[in-house]
């Protein structure tokens, strides 16, 4: 597996690199505290002092967006981590078990995939009560079937390889075969799907936050920031424009990463 850099990949690494940097060092980079109220400077347009303007209680939006990178990225990564780990375990186990178990698991996977995921997520998040953690769990669980299907398909082809059959003949147990031979070999495929999934996870989570089902004030999460800006949409353009742009740029970076990885790794392995 050789990784040749291409234009998409380089652009993605530049974009995402700077955003992760900002998220990690928000405390150093941001000019103000994200929650510092300043009654003298309410709803000010962008200026040298406040590059992205201020909100209805005078908080610096630029700082809030920088700090907002933390919860926004963390939720996106958690969703994809939960979905892919769960999916790989379910898919591998199902593929290796075969028979009736495999049939039942795959029917359930198809069932969940036949549902409109984000609408179900909306109802689930409403039932659990608004919180960023609930949101991550809900979206992560709903993503499992997607990875399970990919992992199972790979497992079915891998388990017929000579080295896997050999290991089994030598008496290796299912868990050992899974850990040693199957999972490492299906990782490249799963990684491509993960990078494509990050964009969807970020968009889905920030959209639910925007509706009010995720991050709660005063936490500066990007979707919640746009939600807070709704009253001021027409007169204070910067309030919605900058936090929304942060979501768009990050999500664009994830999309480029997925595209770039797909082109860089063997393109025959993955069909969109």
């Amino acid at each position: 597996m050789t990784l040749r850099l291409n234009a998409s990949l380089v652009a993605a690494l530049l974009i995402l690199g700077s955003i992760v940097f900002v998220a990690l060092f928000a405390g150093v980079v941001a000019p103000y505290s994200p929650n510092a109220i300043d009654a003298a400077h309410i709803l000010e347009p962008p200026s040298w002092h406040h590059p992205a303007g201020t909100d209805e209680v005078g908080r610096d939006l630029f700082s809030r967006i920088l700090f907002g990178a933390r919860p926004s990225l963390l939720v996106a990564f958690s969703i994809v981590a939960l979905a892919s780990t769960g999916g790989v375990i379910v898919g591998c186990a199902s593929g290796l078990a075969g028979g009736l178990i495999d049939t039942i698991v795959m029917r359930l996977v198809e069932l969940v995939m036949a549902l409109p995921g984000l609408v179900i997520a909306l109802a689930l998040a409403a039932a659990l009560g608004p919180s960023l953690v609930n949101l991550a769990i809900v979206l992560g669980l709903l993503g499992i079937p997607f990875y399970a299907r990919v992992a199972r398909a790979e497992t079915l082809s891998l388990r017929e390889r000579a080295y896997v059959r050999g290991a089994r003949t030598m008496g290796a147990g299912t868990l050992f075969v899974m850990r040693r031979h199957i999972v490492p070999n299906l990782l490249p495929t799963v990684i491509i799907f993960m990078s494509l999934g990050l964009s969807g996870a970020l968009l889905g989570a920030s959209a639910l936050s925007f509706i009010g089902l995720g991050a709660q004030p005063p936490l500066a999460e990007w979707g919640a920031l746009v939600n807070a800006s709704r009253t001021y949409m027409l007169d204070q353009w910067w309030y919605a424009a900058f936090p929304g742009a942060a979501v768009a740029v990050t999500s664009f970076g994830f999309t480029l990463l997925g595209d770039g990885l797909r082109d860089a790794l063997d393109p025959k392995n993955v069909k969109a």
Partner: protein
Amino acid sequence: MATFLLRRLTFLVFVLFGVTVVTFAISHIVPGDPARLLAGPRASASQLREIRSELGLDQPLTTQYLRYMKQLAHGDLGNSLVTGRPILTELADRLPATLELMFCALICSLAVGIPLGVLAATRKKSWVDHLVRAGSAASVSVPAFWLAPLLILLFYSRLGWLPGSGRLDVDPPAAFTGFLLVDTLLAGDGRAFLDAVSHLALPVLTLALLDAGAVARLVRGQMIDVLGEDYIRTARASGLPPRMVIVRHALRNALIPLVTVLGLSIAQMLYGSVIIESLFAWPGTGNYVVTAIFNLDFPVVMGFALLASIAYVGVNLIVDLLYMTLDPRIREAG
């Protein structure tokens, strides 16, 4: 073909059963106290007791589920906590507005996405291709809750070209279908028709821009695959004009999977319209649900989720059937 149909229909029954189990679980099991959620935050202790016995929440889950199914079979989704009206009626009243919006957006998205996808595929690795690819990557990355405010700011607030909210500013025509484009024409009211079109313009543009990128991406991929097939080379070798090869041979085959794209687009819009409608104050089902979430009107959220799921499953069935009629290979494979 018969076995394929039978398998699809069996799966449909299975999925519909699954939908009800999922919505039942979300409304009856997931919340710590379903009665409180269903009664709303302002309910008193005696009201809660009443709701608990009324819904049978003290009974075993299987009994509760059967009750739930029986109510659904009667079209009873419960009543809105805010208006007290049946949820099914409330949603049905708002459905035409949503369908009109989604239908127009779908047409626009396909009208832009398909030609761009074909163009990019036939000029692979040219600047056109790079432009379309970058554009579609941007289109699938942009959040709806950002694009909509930006378009409203530009076309409504700054330029004043288009209205930024609502469906109509003039007196509505007599309602026959609930679709304003149809009703205004039936009433012969040209002014109202133009007004309806101008109100549709921005929300449709937003939804279509968000979806066209995905369509272009998929069409491009399919086209490139088909253009590499032997029969395309044969058609070219036998001297057919390039235009004819692309339209008659390649596009026709590349468009078959587009039926699937249609299904995906509708799913995307089902959700996208929730946010778009809320931002454009569009009086449809999506806007209604966002308001319900804000008002903690939980039964409405559940009713919407159930109906949207059933609609989605139905769309997917139609997509599968279309697929089968269009592609003989699938029919044979059964």
